């Protein structure tokens, strides 16, 4: 297969490009809204992120103006509170994460030798959800009803009683909407990195950047669901009065803090890891040698990922949690310094042993290092509980956090943008303007935040809108404000430089920095398909091994250079070894993601306006669009009706049993599992810790009915598994009938569950106990409904011939969902019904 392709005679690159473009090219005009291509969408993500960055930056300048002098009346307190809340929210949720996702979406397929991400329509859905959610959230600023309880939204301050306006709703709904984009990017990045690397790229030959993004994506998948759960709970409390966080009804505001920081701390590393990935990519290139300690770095990434989920309590040292827990989280928080220090010294050793050249991107790397090490050191200090008790919630923490986030994310990002600019535009940046921009940003940043440590030590708390001269903070605040404006000037200069370079930059040569990774083998700017033929990779440095790679790729001398079938194809490879297993064919441009996210935007706005019936209708529309989208898969005429492949090539993924879709389902279920575990955590937390929790003597849920529903679910799952085993043996006799029978069993489970809820008579607006039960039952119900509907659709698809022994892929994907539902269901029965029975209620 590949051997024939590789030795084949060179083809005319221009002709090949035209043929490829026919299949992969982007439409223009209004149809550009249907584009699913990762290059285009990655750029859209980054451009949109920049806009939110500018808005967030202006808010920061408003804050610094207000604090420049004592007793200022520049902003009213209620406006000031909206401004700092939105500054944090925009920078975290609408700039840092989407920006890095955008970079990863743009870069990952190019680095691993793929033509697109593995779920292109999901990329598009993610972008639209991000854009619409961001617009809805930001609009609250202009309507002057922005959230004003801080970006951490602690209850009860953010609850209906103390924040009656729509501000908190904008935050909860808007952020949850935007998080759809983070999760979808997380899922498809994981699957793309694991399953679509080019031939021969085993895990240990993967560029380090891909390792970092793999860790980031997995952390998003596991880390975001706790916040989504918390947001849903708080919104339910605000909208319909389910008292999850209300002490008098048995809830607990501290549960919000646990769930928030369970997300919030990993989030810091979700932001830092990709940025460190940029540094690990740039340093070897500019040192002119491979990175030393590749395995050390991979180990550091993995360890960071794990430790970061065990640190969240260090944001809560003043809450009054038990000493032992504080000691544990304190030590764990310090330990995270170890993998970070490993990376710092790997970078140092690489420079030490190489021949570094000081180009503009490296200037930003150096700035990153100084600022980030400083932020890391104050981070270790803050992990020490007695010190934390003093400086927690002062400007010392504000300073620390900006050192970590600006140093750890913005500086590497700038380094990366300058580094990859020639790829984005085909032009080189100007060294002169860029250096001015760097120095202004660097000096301004340190003037603002180095001094702010001191202001905090002098006792200035966070989030106060003014202060008096007697407190002795005047001069330091003044200096911080001046520094802030200098930094803004620096950022403005950088953006000007980048904007100008698109017009005036000198054309870039191929591989201008002499890099080693595959993204520099594409044309500059890259075509929609990245590679006319997919190269084989035998080392970590394909482009250093063979500098002629760009030409041979364009001449179609490598794999999958045939395009007359009209499919968008790339390799599906083994997750460990990178051996080719199947051909993945991707869907083309589609309107469904746009329509689905528009419907979701309507849902979001209706919930904000409390038009619940309309929100229900829009939800149905969104589900309809998503199901319609799922229809165009496998052997559907718009997907891959004809399964013909080149002689010797592996089969299409939709004709196998282990395609990327199955992996995407598994990763999505991982996110779902994290959501469910967070829910269980909430249940047990409230049960054991909440001060006024009341457990009824007997469970309101009927155990026999629950068990009966469980039996229906179990029977359905077993039957579906049996059908899948049949398909594995190429046996599709009675497939449609079987699928309909499974659907009926799913329906029976749903009916029984509804009966359970009906007869339980839960007072979900009066006690936290009943509210939590109802939430769990709704979760199980929705999952049951999803499994049932998808099985019904599979049955129909058999009738259309889209699913059969020849195209057996999809029932296996649905079966995985059923298996998950089964597990969750019995855990719910155990945790919610039988455990309280054994341990006795009332307690």
């Amino acid at each position: 297969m590949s051997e024939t392709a590789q030795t084949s005679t060179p083809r005319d690159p221009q002709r090949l490009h035209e043929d490829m473009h026919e299949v992969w090219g982007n439409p223009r005009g209004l149809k550009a809204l249907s584009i699913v291509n990762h290059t285009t969408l990655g750029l859209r993500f980054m451009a949109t992120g920049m806009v939110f960055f500018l808005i967030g930056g202006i808010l920061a300048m408003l804050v610094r103006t207000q604090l420049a002098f004592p007793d200022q009346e520049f902003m009213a307190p209620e406006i000031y509170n909206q401004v700092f809340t939105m500054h944090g929210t925009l920078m975290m949720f609408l700039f840092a994460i989407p920006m890095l996702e955008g970079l990863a979406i743009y870069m990952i397929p190019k680095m691993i030798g793929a033509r697109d991400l593995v779920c292109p329509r999901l990329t598009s859905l993610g972008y639209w959800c991000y854009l619409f959610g961001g617009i809805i959230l930001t609009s609250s600023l202009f309507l002057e009803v922005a959230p004003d309880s801080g970006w951490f939204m602690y209850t009860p301050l953010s609850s209906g009683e103390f924040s009656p306006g729509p501000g908190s709703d904008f935050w909860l709904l808007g952020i949850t909407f935007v998080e759809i984009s983070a999760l979808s990017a997380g899922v498809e990045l994981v699957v793309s990195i694991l399953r679509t690397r080019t031939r021969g790229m085993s895990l240990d030959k993967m560029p380090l950047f891909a390792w970092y993004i793999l860790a980031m994506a997995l952390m998003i998948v596991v880390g975001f669901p706790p916040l989504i759960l918390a947001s849903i709970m708080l919104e339910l409390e605000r909208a319909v009065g389910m008292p999850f966080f209300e002490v008098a009804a048995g809830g607990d505001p501290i549960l919000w803090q646990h769930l928030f920081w369970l997300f919030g701390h990993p989030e810091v590393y979700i932001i830092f890891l990709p940025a460190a990935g940029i540094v690990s990519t740039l340093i070897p290139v500019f040192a002119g040698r491979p990175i030393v300690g590749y395995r050390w770095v991979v180990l550091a990434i993995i360890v960071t990922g794990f430790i970061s989920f065990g640190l969240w309590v260090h944001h809560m040292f003043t809450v009054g949690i038990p000493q032992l827990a504080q000691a544990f989280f304190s030590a764990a928080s310090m330990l995270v310094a170890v993998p970070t220090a490993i990376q710092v010294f790997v970078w140092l050793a690489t420079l030490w042993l190489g021949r570094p050249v000081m180009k503009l991107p490296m200037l930003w790397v150096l700035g990153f290092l100084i600022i980030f090490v400083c932020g890391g050191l104050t981070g270790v200090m803050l992990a020490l509980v007695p010190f934390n008790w003093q400086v927690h919630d002062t400007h010392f923490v504000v300073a620390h956090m900006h050192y970590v986030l600006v140093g750890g994310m913005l500086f590497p990002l700038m380094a990366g943008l300058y580094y990859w600019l020639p790829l984005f535009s085909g032009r080189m940046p100007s060294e002169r303007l860029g250096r001015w921009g760097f120095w202004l940003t660097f000096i301004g940043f340190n003037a603002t935040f180095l001094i702010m440590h001191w202001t905090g030590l002098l006792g200035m708390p966070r989030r106060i809108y003014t202060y008096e001269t007697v407190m002795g903070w005047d001069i330091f605040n003044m200096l911080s404000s001046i520094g802030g404006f200098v930094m803004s000037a620096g950022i403005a200069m950088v953006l000007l430089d980048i904007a100008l370079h698109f017009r005036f930059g000198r054309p870039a040569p191929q591989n201008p920095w002499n890099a080693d990774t595959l993204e520099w083998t594409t044309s500059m700017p890259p075509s929609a398909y990245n590679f006319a033929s997919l190269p084989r990779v035998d080392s970590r440095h394909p482009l250093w091994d063979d500098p002629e790679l760009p030409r041979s790729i364009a001449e179609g001398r490598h794999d999958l250079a045939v395009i007359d079938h009209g499919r968008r194809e790339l390799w599906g490879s083994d997750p460990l070894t990178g051996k080719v297993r199947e051909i993945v064919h991707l869907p083309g441009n589609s309107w469904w993601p746009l329509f689905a996210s528009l419907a979701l935007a309507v849902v979001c706005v209706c919930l904000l306006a409390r038009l619940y019936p309309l929100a229900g209708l829009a939800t149905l529309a969104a589900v309809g669009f998503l199901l319609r989208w799922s229809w165009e898969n496998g052997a559907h005429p718009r997907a891959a009706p004809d399964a013909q492949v080149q002689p010797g090539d592996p089969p299409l993924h939709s004709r196998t049993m282990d395609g990327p879709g199955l992996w995407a389902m598994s990763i999505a279920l991982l996110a779902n599992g994290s959501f469910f575990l967070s829910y269980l955590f909430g249940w047990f937390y409230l049960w054991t810790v909440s001060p006024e929790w009341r457990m009824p003597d007997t469970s309101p849920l009927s155990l026999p009915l629950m068990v009966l529903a469980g039996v229906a679910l179990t029977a359905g799952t077993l039957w579906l598994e049996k059908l899948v085993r049949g398909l594995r043996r190429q046996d599709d006799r009675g497939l449609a009938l079987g699928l309909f029978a499974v659907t009926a069993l799913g329906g029976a489970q749903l009916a029984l569950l509804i009966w359970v809820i009906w007869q339980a008579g839960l007072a979900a607006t009066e006690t936290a106990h009943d509210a939590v039960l109802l939430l769990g039952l709704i979760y199980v119900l929705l999952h049951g409904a999803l499994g049932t509907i998808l099985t019904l659709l599979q049955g129909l698809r058999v009738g259309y011939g889209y699913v059969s022994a020849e195209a057996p892929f999809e029932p296996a994907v649905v079966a995985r969902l059923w298996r998950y539902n089964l597990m969750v269901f019995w855990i719910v029965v155990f945790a919610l019904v039988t455990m309280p029975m054994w341990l006795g209620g009332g307690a």
Partner: protein
Amino acid sequence: MLVGCSGDRSILDPAGQAAREVAWLWWGMLAFSTVVLVVITALWLYAFRGGRRVARSSRDEQRIARRWIIGGGLLLPGLSIVLLLAFGVPVGQRMLPLPLPDGQQVERIEVTGHQWWWEVRYPDAEGGEVVTSNQLMMPVGEPVDFHVTGADVIHAFWIPRLGGKIDMIPGRTNVIRLEADASGVFGAQCAEFCGAQHTNMQLHVEAMPRDDFNAWLAERQAPPEQSDDHQAARDTFVEHCASCHRVAGVSDGQQGPDLSDIGDRVSLGAGRLAMEEGAIAHWLRHHQQLKPGNRMPSHDHLDAETLDALGAWLETLSP
């Protein structure tokens, strides 16, 4: 340097054991971190100076790399953490509100955070509980346990010059032990963002010798004497203010700050306005401009004379 560190709320100008130990921790950590930062930066800058490379075998390179990674990546943070915990953990231990060895009674003061003022109670005062607001008197030279909670949202109790802070959470009571070395006045401010007027939620803290403290409590045991001069103002108060504010012997409202000794306080509106003659009347007229969003309704329906008289009477409420 020491001048730059001083201040009403400066962590680096400690006036109690806990704060002093933290201040020392800070100086130690600052010195150590500065050395680490300078050395790492210097190494990096040195490494950036290309063009002085000698050809090395890959074996040599591996050795050098491993030395950096193990030395800088494992040993440096490992030893730093051990060092930090060795100094830090005992400090934290000493701050805990454990029972005193000789069975000595610890003074107990209850502080409740409200949007946006402080309720302070002395439940163990001889002769009955003493209640005041937005000011906190404490004895010098002995440990004091502060039992804190929040009435509405989460607040945080923090007297920077005495020691660390603790959250005031609705439904929970947290305890923090602090001790003042010498008599004096200390600034304090809510440290957990609690809404529109988080900024103007300040607490006047005063430490005094035990005898003075006992005397201060005793003064507040009996309701202040009421003269007949202010009968009209008292009637106004009973009609318009009594459902929210308590004045010992006059009313028993619990929504707002206790005003029984308001004439004796140093400020109004939880630190917003200095107390002086006429200040209360000014506050009554303009409190929504002075402290926008505070929970007290505006008094526009009362004329200026009535408010002046009310203010004048309240100023007399002093033990």
